[in-house]
């Protein structure tokens, strides 16, 4: 299957320094890819390069089989972008912003008007349609900007920090909307964000950028396999475990790491088959076990583990997270 997005050694620098350095990745159609990294990681530059807004210094990209640097206009007809700032003209009404964008995209007026009304209805903005954008909240603007990005039914949707500046309720609304978009028509979504919660909920795969360099790319489980061995499991003991219990588990064959958790312990085992043995051992030792579940690595766990590895490479110290503790040498975590 032809990739929806493909980059090879994509590089771009500005007068302030290198923004993206040799990015190589591939995104199949219908996938949601989270581009993760702190501010200045190169996420926005990537989005701009993939839409032909910026030209690469080196390397190449294809999006929907088109080269953004050469066929930018043809490509932009088939992609939609939600920029970090909603980018709406505050002097115009919500409806005018959408209709005029459609006209600027060269779409038929009658079709655009119908589509605008449908999108405003779907995004819960129908009652604000004729109010100047100036009088709308940040959350409403984001929804409106998302509607605008979907106006021409794009095959690839780029979302650059879609929830920045939103309160928790508006964040949930926008994530729900994006979640529903991801399942529509096999649309490919590139989600550039530094909010791991939204990325974890929406993304199939993740790409971690740091100072323009790609440090990890793949499904969280795949990346985790390269970062640490084994499988994590949570043992619910009804409260924090004592040192003797933790030591007993540590001495069990197949256990790699044991870490404290508020409701018991988190263990890393060589294989999930080890977990029933641990439960039996605990019960036989008189420790009540209220639950035991394998805990696949979350995107957040993997992201912080990658960040910790980057920090270690650069000789920086970071605040340890549960993933850091679990990826630490056996015996150091408890």
């Amino acid at each position, binding site marked *: 299957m032809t990739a929806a997005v493909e980059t090879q050694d994509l590089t771009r620098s500005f007068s302030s320094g290198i923004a993206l350095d040799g990015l190589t990745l591939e995104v199949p159609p219908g996938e949601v890819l989270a581009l993760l990294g702190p501010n200045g990681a190169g996420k926005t530059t990537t989005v701009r390069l993939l839409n032909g807004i*910026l030209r690469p210094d080196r390397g190449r990209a294809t999006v929907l089989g088109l080269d953004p640097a050469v066929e*930018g*206009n043809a490509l*932009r007809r088939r992609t939609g972008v939600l920029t970090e*700032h909603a980018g709406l003209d505050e002097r115009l009404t919500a409806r005018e912003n959408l209709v005029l964008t459609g006209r600027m*995209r060269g779409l038929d007026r009658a079709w655009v008007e119908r589509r605008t009304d449908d999108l405003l209805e779907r995004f819960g903005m129908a009652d604000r349609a004729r109010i100047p954008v100036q009088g709308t909240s940040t959350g409403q603007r984001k929804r409106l900007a998302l509607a*605008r990005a979907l106006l021409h039914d794009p095959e690839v949707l780029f979302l650059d920090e879609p929830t920045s500046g939103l309160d928790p309720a508006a964040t949930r609304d926008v994530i729900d909307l994006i979640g529903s978009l991801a399942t529509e028509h096999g649309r490919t979504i590139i989600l550039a964000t530094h909010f791991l919660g939204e990325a974890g909920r929406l993304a199939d795969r993740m790409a971690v950028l740091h100072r323009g360099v790609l440090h990890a790319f793949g499904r969280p489980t795949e990346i985790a396999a390269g970062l640490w061995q084994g499988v994590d499991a949570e043992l619910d003991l009804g409260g924090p475990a004592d040192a003797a219990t933790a030591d007993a588990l540590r001495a069990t064959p197949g256990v790699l790491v044991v870490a404290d958790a508020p409701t018991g312990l988190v263990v890393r085992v060589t294989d999930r088959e080890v977990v029933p043995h641990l439960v039996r051992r605990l019960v036989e030792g008189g420790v009540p076990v209220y639950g035991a579940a394998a805990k696949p690595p979350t995107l957040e766990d993997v992201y912080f583990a990658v960040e910790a590895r980057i920090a270690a490479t650069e000789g920086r110290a970071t605040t340890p997270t549960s993933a850091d503790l679990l990826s630490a040498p056996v015996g150091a975590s408890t």
Partner: protein
Amino acid sequence: MQAIIAKDLIAVRRSKAVVIPMLAVPALLMIIMPLFIGLAARGPTNPDIGRLLSTMPGDLARPILELPAREQLIVLVNGYLLAPLFLIVPLMVSAVLAADAFAGEKERKTLESLLHLPVQDRELFYAKLLTAFIPAIAVSWIGFLCFCLVANGVAWPVMHRVFVPTRLWLVMIFWVAPAVATFGLAVMVRISARAKTSQEANQLGGAVILPLIFLAVGQSSGLLLVPLPVAAMVGGLIWLVALWLVRGGAKRFTRDQLAARV
């Protein structure tokens, strides 16, 4: 391109901070001033402008001195001295709007959305240029029509004839003024693409536009005294320079440059 211009013109129309000075200044210069001059000339006491005329260049003063005393003030002010305003107004309006073209989009954080449209770089440049040019010329021409109606109407009891526009006036309004406006906005659009805010663009552009305004003030009355072909040729020269600047600007203009500054 038409849709971008239409959208920008709607947005400009909604912006009171832009519309009010854009209309108030021309109304003052092109309607209120000729009205008062005409009323003053109709008054029972005829102002003596002989001393003023004696200080003016012979070519300008001679045809006025040949007129009846009551007509002299009207012809001097409404026929000659207000002429520079018809170059200044389109230059001023186009400069203000052109300064806003890209710098204003940056300020309002709407530039990136604009760059993501499937529009050629050159179309984007010309759309922004025309967004400044169309209102500037509209204000200038409508203002001139109002000026002619007011100046002739209010001076009718004294003049008993239509004294503006002359053929030279028409050359200046419909040929020279658009050329000067194009010249100014070609410079301003390029500055606007580099500036971060409209204010910065206006400040940078002021260094270019102000000397142009002084030049216009100094030369436009004189332009009404030269033979028609000379005035047309001067206009042609300004058009050549202006279009060369526009073409150069369009060639150099790229999305990449703008996006790198967002």
